[in-house]
């Protein structure tokens, strides 16, 4: 501290210094109070917005535990007498199959699709990010172009193609294109991620005797892991929620995935058993939510860093 500001300094009268000290203390206190108030406002606001966002979900869970008549009678989301009736009856469905069957169908689509996406997109992205080959620029440009193409445009040609292949009413149209790196978005995302990773490690691996495939497998994939987890999560959630795809290609009830099965219970029941529908909706949401929360850490890492830490 500068010696001149000490109270004993004859140049400064004692009360002067005291006054200054008091003033600065008051200012600090005011600042602290302001900060606290703004923090309270901030949190209140965030909580309110968060609540509004989550309200439908909370309501959904509450309503799934109500009886069918209470859903419309009681506007609050806490049921008077919670019952699992909706879950038990809803699980049975009005078809010969239980919901377990539909979950299994969804799994049969999601599993090859996610796995295939991870493998094929990694391979394609590795090629684009690390190798020079004739026509690379044009190929990459067309990849980006497909990214910008609206989905609807390709629906009909795709349908005709799959019909000619005899793939209608099977799971193939739902996962095969993705498993062949058909999702340009994921390829693009991985290419960007790879570009941010220095090549030194791969060069070291080549000097160590690894061929391109070994380098990919032992060096690139582990470094790419956060991005790959994001890709798998996105693919998982989007497929879980996909309604249009199955609606177009699947026609027999025994092949319905969960998303279609939910719709099924609305169609066939004359008097809608809303509590059953809501209960099954909760179950349909559960896998995505659980997976997301389990993998949240990697997921955020994957989409935000896009590179390696030092």
């Amino acid at each position: 501290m500068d010696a001149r500001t000490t109270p004993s300094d004859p140049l400064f009268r004692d009360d002067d210094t005291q006054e200054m000290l008091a003033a600065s203390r008051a200012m600090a206190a005011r600042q602290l109070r302001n900060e606290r108030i703004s923090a309270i406002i901030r949190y209140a606001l965030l909580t309110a917005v968060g609540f509004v966002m989550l309200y439908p979900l909370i309501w959904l869970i509450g309503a799934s535990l109500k009886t069918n008549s209470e859903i419309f009678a009681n506007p609050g989301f806490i049921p008077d007498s919670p019952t699992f009736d909706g879950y038990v009856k809803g699980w049975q469905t009005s078809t010969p199959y239980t919901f377990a069957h539909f979950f299994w169908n969804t799994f049969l689509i999601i599993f090859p699709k996610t796995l295939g996406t991870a493998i094929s997109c990694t391979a394609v992205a590795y090629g684009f990010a690390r190798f020079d080959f004739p026509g690379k620029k044009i190929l990459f440009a067309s990849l980006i172009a497909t990214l910008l193409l609206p989905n609807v445009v390709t629906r009909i040609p795709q349908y005709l193609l799959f019909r000619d292949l005899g793939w209608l009413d099977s799971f193939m149209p739902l996962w095969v294109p993705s498993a062949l790196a058909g999702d340009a978005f994921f390829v693009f995302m991985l290419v960007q991620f790879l570009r941010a990773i220095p090549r030194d490690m791969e060069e070291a691996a080549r000097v160590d005797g690894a061929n391109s495939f070994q380098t990919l497998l032992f060096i690139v994939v582990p470094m790419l892991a956060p991005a790959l987890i994001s890709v798998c999560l996105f693919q998982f959630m989007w497929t879980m929620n996909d309604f249009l795809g199955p609606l177009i290609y699947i026609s027999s009830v025994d092949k319905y995935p969960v998303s279609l099965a939910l719709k099924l219970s609305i169609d066939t029941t004359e008097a809608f058993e809303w509590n059953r529908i809501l209960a099954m909706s909760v179950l349909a949401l559960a896998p995505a939510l659980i997976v997301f929360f389990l993998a949240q850490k990697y997921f955020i890492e994957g989409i935000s860093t896009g590179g390696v830490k030092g």
Partner: protein
Amino acid sequence: MARLQLRNLEKVYGNQFKAVHGINLDVEEGEFMVLVGPSGCAKSTTLRMIAGLETISGGEVRIGDRVVNDLAPGKRGIAMVFQNYALYPHMKVRSNLSFGLRIQNMPKAEREAATQEVARILEIEELLDRLPKQLSGGQAQRVALGRALIKKPEVFLFDEPLSNLDAKLRASMRVRIIDLHRRLKQEGKPATVVYVTHDQTEAMTMGDRICVMKEGRIMQVADPKALYNRPANLFVAGFIGSPEMNLMQGRLEDVSDPVFRIDGQAVALGRELGARLTLGSASDATVGVRPQHFEVVRGDTDSGLNGRISHVEFMGHEVYLHVDLGGVRVVAVVGAAEYEALDRSSGQLRLRPNAASIHVFDTASGENISLSRLAA
């Protein structure tokens, strides 16, 4: 355990930039060759062509008696240490070291033994179960060194391996690498080394021979002593030595008993120097004198250059005098005691270059024209 030969090696990058202009270099078996030069002179490019990480646009790389131009890096019998270590971030030190052996399908027990052996030599045994991000720079560099060593390659390639370390660590790593090289030689497993650096201290202290490069061409290849005492051209003369050699442009007259004229002053260089000049007649020349080879003499001594002290740097045991010779600035190094004894009242002094250590360069071509009889 093999010699390395570069024959008319060329590199043209994809953007048509010619980085390497047909260089020839022989590195003998067990030799420690240092590639040195300013930034951008294609040291890394050359090294990467030897390693196989960069395609070769022209010429040949031979390791032993094989032309390796078309071999994959892993098949060339080389190992490389990178500037920023390039350790595999997701692997423990142990796996980093043995990755190359794993790729060669070496049995696990042998691999483990080799890893222990290398870890012992480099004193990194306690680090084997750590991840690269848990290592300090020096430790990471030792692991990188170990990863090269474990493969028992024929040629070691280093690309500025110490430039990310602090000065002290750099000095100790330097010694460690030289020791290792010597030890391998004593054990009868001499390692051929190509070591890239832009640090001349590293080059001078480590190299058996040094290859000085400039803009994709080799300027001189020689052992450290010869490089210092017999620089082949202006570039090498200016690049090697610290503080830098003083290079003074002027005119050389009277070739047998040469007199050098510079900014209105003349200094006689002596018949001895005249005898080693490979020069027919008077011409423009650049005279090079190392700061250590200036002698401060009395004002009335014949043969000397008068100047004014512009600036003095104390370095402890010696003093750098920056002297203005009327247009040309030179640096002279004198001992601290000598400096104290100096009469500095006028700020003027007279410098006499030590004739035996003078170099004369053709100003136009930059060639050293005073080498013909200078003792090797």
